[in-house]
């Protein structure tokens, strides 16, 4: 279902400033047909006052992309280019009474087209602007863009970055990279894995195995309707039984392997899990 405000619907159904200005003073182009949305913005700018006299757009995209583009043209008409540059993607969204969060990238596209057009007006060549490492190959999103949009909109999660830039919304391969960028921006410390203690006493080992089972293993089995019972520990041999839905489950071999892997990771490399 569409959760668009009345204003988004109005601007989608009756968009203002459609088309192309003949002999424009500035052209901004962003997006591509592959990515599912694209915007071409043409401006008439008074070269003496740097004032935007007219703005027109052409958009390929969904309703909110069309509405955002139209809103942008309304917002910048009559402003000087310096004033126009103050308009953020949030301003575009607010002008429309808000956008669904997963459609925020439409407002970002508007802001980008404006930047592109003004750079074009100032004669800054495209190649210089488009430098930067490509993070999301599916939607052609650079690290530079992710940083910029994340900082401007105070984005802290990968999902938010996807909502605002589409990055990470395709194959998902770059999600970890986006997370690293976010950590870098906000300097959030990575929760580190508990270090493997060296040379455990038997007593410590038993306690640690019990702790890992309680903390790491049991909750996951219980989430699938199963359970685990710790029967005995003899050196590195851990004897367990599977309970509940795990009993006779075709996946039980896989489950046991994953229990063993977890214990190897968190307790000792030598652990062997046996089922009773």
């Amino acid at each position, binding site marked *: 279902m*569409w959760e668009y405000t009345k204003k988004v*619907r109005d601007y*989608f*159904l009756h*968009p203002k400033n*459609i*088309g192309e200005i003949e002999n424009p003073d500035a052209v901004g*182009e962003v997006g*591509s*047909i*592959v*990515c*599912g*949305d*694209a*915007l*071409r913005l043409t401006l008439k700018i008074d070269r003496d006052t740097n004032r935007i006299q007219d703005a027109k757009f*052409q*958009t*390929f*995209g*969904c*309703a909110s*992309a*069309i509405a955002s583009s139209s809103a942008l043209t309304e917002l910048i008409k009559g402003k000087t280019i310096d004033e126009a540059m103050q308009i953020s993607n949030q301003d575009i969204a607010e002008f429309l009474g808000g956008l669904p969060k997963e459609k925020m990238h439409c407002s970002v596209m508007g802001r980008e087209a404006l930047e592109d057009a003004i750079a074009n007006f100032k004669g800054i060549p495209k190649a210089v602007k488009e430098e930067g490492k490509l993070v999301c*190959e*599916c*939607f*052609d999103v650079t690290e530079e863009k992710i940083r910029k949009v994340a900082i401007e909109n105070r984005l802290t999660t990968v999902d938010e970055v*996807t909502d605002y830039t*589409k990055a990470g*919304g*395709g*194959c998902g391969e770059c999600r970890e990279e986006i997370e690293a960028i976010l950590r870098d921006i906000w300097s959030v410390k990575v929760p580190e894995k508990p270090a493997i203690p060296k040379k455990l006493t038997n007593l410590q080992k038993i306690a640690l195995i019990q702790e890992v089972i309680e903390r790491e293993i049991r909750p996951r089995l219980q989430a699938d309707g199963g359970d685990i019972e710790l029967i005995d520990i003899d050196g590195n041999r851990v004897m367990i039984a599977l309970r509940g839905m795990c009993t006779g489950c*075709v*996946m039980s*071999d*896989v489950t046991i392997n994953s229990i063993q892997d977890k214990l190897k990771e968190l307790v000792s490399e030598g652990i062997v899990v046996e089922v009773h």
Partner: protein
Amino acid sequence: MNTIYLDNNATTPVAPEVLDEMLPYLKELYGNPSSMHTFGGQLHEKVEKARSKVAQLIGAELDEIIFTSCGTESDNTAIMSAVESFPNKRHIITTRVEHPAVLNFCKHLARKGFRVTYLPVNNYGQLNIDDLLKVLDEDTALVSIMYANNESGVIFPIAEIAEILKKRRILFHTDAVQAVGKIPIDVNKLPVDMLSLSGHKLHAPKGVGALYVRKGTRFHPYIIGGHQERGRRAGTENVASIIGLGKACELAMKNLSDEINYLKGLRDKLENALLKSCPDASINGDINNRLPNTTNLSFEYVEGEAILLRLNEYGICASSGSACTSGSLEPSHVLRAMGVPFTAIHGSIRFSLSRYNTEAEIDRVIEIMPLIIKELRLLSPFGRDKLEQFLHSPKSKFLRKIS
């Protein structure tokens, strides 16, 4: 404004006859069919009568039908049953264009260590049986291939595949949710082991489905509890909906051949008119092997959500494979698997008809649709020349993935 509902592959209206049949079981006849007293116990017979109607529609026997809560449950049950019945076999074969009920369940099993082969389709959405033959092996526990595709409407050669698998003694399940009630299906001529169907795709209510399991097929229940459905699916029967499904199957059987002709007539009229009135439009899928009620059309240079929302203004309901309507940022996995160019996927629209659509409704869509396409194209920065330009630019990963 009247609604013109052309999204029947998503769900269908409940037939008035079905509702009438159901109502007593939502009012005074509220008993539990498992009860010993007559008040409840009498419903058992009604459930069995509904079962026989479902069985008849597909040529099955009474006790080969298990009632479930939906098509997804039927699909999940069939796959899980196969896996549990052959614990030493770790290979599953399906296709890249299945419904998520099969596709995501297979992905889930792949994460649990199963080997899953996803068969490709060609540009017309057709399967190549040689691709299947190449990947069958001793380790194959199950082949699950849909009868007809929900998006393209393309019908797969299920009978031919079933014959091959029968000879090889490999278990075969077909998700026939989009096919049952729309085209004739007779399990006597179709040696599938399991077949899923869903009530709300054939004018029964949502929340009821069935799984056909051929006699002699190894079976493990998925939902475990009481003895209902002869121990094959626990949970108190959804009596009213089961009775509704029985009635819906009876109606489908009675009118099937007339309906096929009627729907095909309307669908072809709509399709031909739109291809004529909208330049740069094309059909997605094999036009010779298609459900009679489905057409999937691509309109270049415009985006599907925008088309749908404009249609919505006229009360016209359809669906699209575009990214903006998929619930994620990725466009339709079916159209991508078919190698439909991205430009065409974003502008894809599916119309799916039912017996309740009228010619006047189709005429209205024929009148409105070209206006919408023309208007949105005026807004678009793309056109034939721009597209050419784009296609010569370096391709993104998405395009590389399909090519």
